[in-house]
Structure formats: structure tokens, C-alpha cells
């Protein structure tokens, strides 16, 4: 019985804090994306358009590790039974990727353009019952200075 109470309170705590944290994170992502939208980023190997004389090229990277909350993990295990979209994990990887790209862009605000953006995703932490608890996303690219 006691175990059930712990489980329930973990789920409720996870739900409340998870929702708050996720909403706050999305708000911050959207604000920062707008603030740095002028820095052109592409995953092609050449610069977009003509940027003029190239002065320097530098490897830049940004990474983040984000964890899913307890509520979503429980819901996911139910989803695994019925099938269908796992919304909780979709937002998890979406937040992680956008955050990683933002950190990369924020690490070189003076660049003229960022080319050849690559994203690498991996799960580094396995939660109880071998479920993926968190994802690491690494974004790396070449920053072009003129």
C-alpha cells in the first residue's frame, strides 16, 4: 500500500513539475529562436548566397541532455501496450534538438553563416526497467566568418 502511495505521488509530482518545466522551456526556446533568427544556419555544405570574402572557418558545437518526467514515463509504458504516437517523447526530443541548435548558434553570434549543421542523438541514461530516461543531443557545424 505504501509503495502505491509513493508511486502515485511520484506520478503527480512528475505531471505538475513536468508540465511547468516543459512550458517554461518552450517559452524560452521560442524567445531565443526569434532573437537569433538573423544568423543563417543551413545543413548544406556550401554557404547560402554570396557572403563575400571568407576570413575564417571554425568548428562549433552545442549539446544538451534532457530528461523526461515520471508521469510521461508511466504513460509511455501504457502506450507501448496500445500503440500510437508517444507525445511525451516527441516533445522531449524536439526540445532537446532545438535547445542544442540554439546553444550552437549562441556560441558564435558574430558568424556570418553556419553551414553543414549535423545533429547527433543518443540516450545516455537508462531509467528503471530499461526505459530511456533521457536523451542527449549534440549539434555541430562549421561557422563561417567574413
Amino acid at each position, binding site marked *: 500500500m505504501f509503495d502505491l502511495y509513493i508511486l502515485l505521488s*511520484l506520478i503527480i*509530482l*512528475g505531471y505538475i*513539475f*513536468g508540465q511547468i*518545466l*516543459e512550458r517554461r*522551456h518552450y517559452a524560452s526556446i521560442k524567445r531565443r529562436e526569434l532573437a537569433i533568427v538573423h544568423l543563417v544556419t543551413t545543413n548544406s*555544405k556550401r*554557404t547560402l548566397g554570396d557572403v563575400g*570574402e*571568407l*576570413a575564417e*572557418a*571554425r*568548428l562549433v*558545437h552545442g*549539446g*544538451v*541532455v*534532457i*530528461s*523526461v*518526467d*515520471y508521469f*510521461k514515463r508511466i504513460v509511455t509504458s501504457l502506450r507501448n501496450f496500445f500503440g500510437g504516437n508517444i507525445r511525451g517523447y516527441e516533445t522531449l526530443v524536439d526540445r532537446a534538438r532545438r*535547445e542544442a541548435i540554439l546553444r550552437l548558434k549562441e556560441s558564435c553570434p558574430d558568424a556570418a553563416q553556419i*553551414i*553543414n549543421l*549535423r545533429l*547527433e542523438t*543518443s*540516450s*545516455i*541514461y*537508462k*531509467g528503471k526497467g530499461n526505459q530511456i*530516461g*533521457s536523451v*542527449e543531443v*549534440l549539434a*555541430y*557545424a*562549421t561557422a*563561417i566568418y567574413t
Partner: protein
Amino acid sequence: MFMTNVEEVPGKQIVACYGVVSGSTVRAKHVGRDIMAGLKNIFGGELVGYTELLSEAREQAMARMQQQAEALGANAIVNVRFSTSSITAGASEIYIYGTAVTVE
């Protein structure tokens, strides 16, 4: 040392090529970070300890790759790729590789 993840150093000419260089590092998280990560796994959100751990590991792997390239006499590394894998529970490997070249 120039490093890029495209096939060339933009704006410069490659004059010599020395082949693939790589650097890797395996890091374990320590107990303090593990406890915090356990808590964060309830609430969700960023695991700052792990983010730092992985970025330190990446810097180290990159430094090792650069050393190897310098030993060969190269002054640039092109086509750099990152990869991460978890070998055992609690440790993660960062592997970085690229092609060592000389640019004029």
C-alpha cells in the same frame, strides 16, 4: 588548428593530406551527479550535470584528436564527425574523428 565539418577549409586550399585522425574518451558520471539526475528523472528537464560532463568529455576528445593531427604535421582537420555511445550503464564514450590535412 583549423577544424571544420565540411570537406574543405572554406576559403583555403588543401595542399597535403595525412588520413584519418581520431580522439576518444570514456567518462563515468559521479555519484553526486547521479543522485541529482535521479531526482530530475522524476520532474523532467535538463540534466545540467550530464550536459557539462559530456561537453568536458568532448573537449578532451577533441584535444586528443588535435594532438594526433599536430604530431603528423597537419594544420587543419576537415570533415570532423562526432559520435556518442553508452558502453556500460553509467558511462558514455565520446568519439571524434576527421581527416588531417595541411592548408596553405
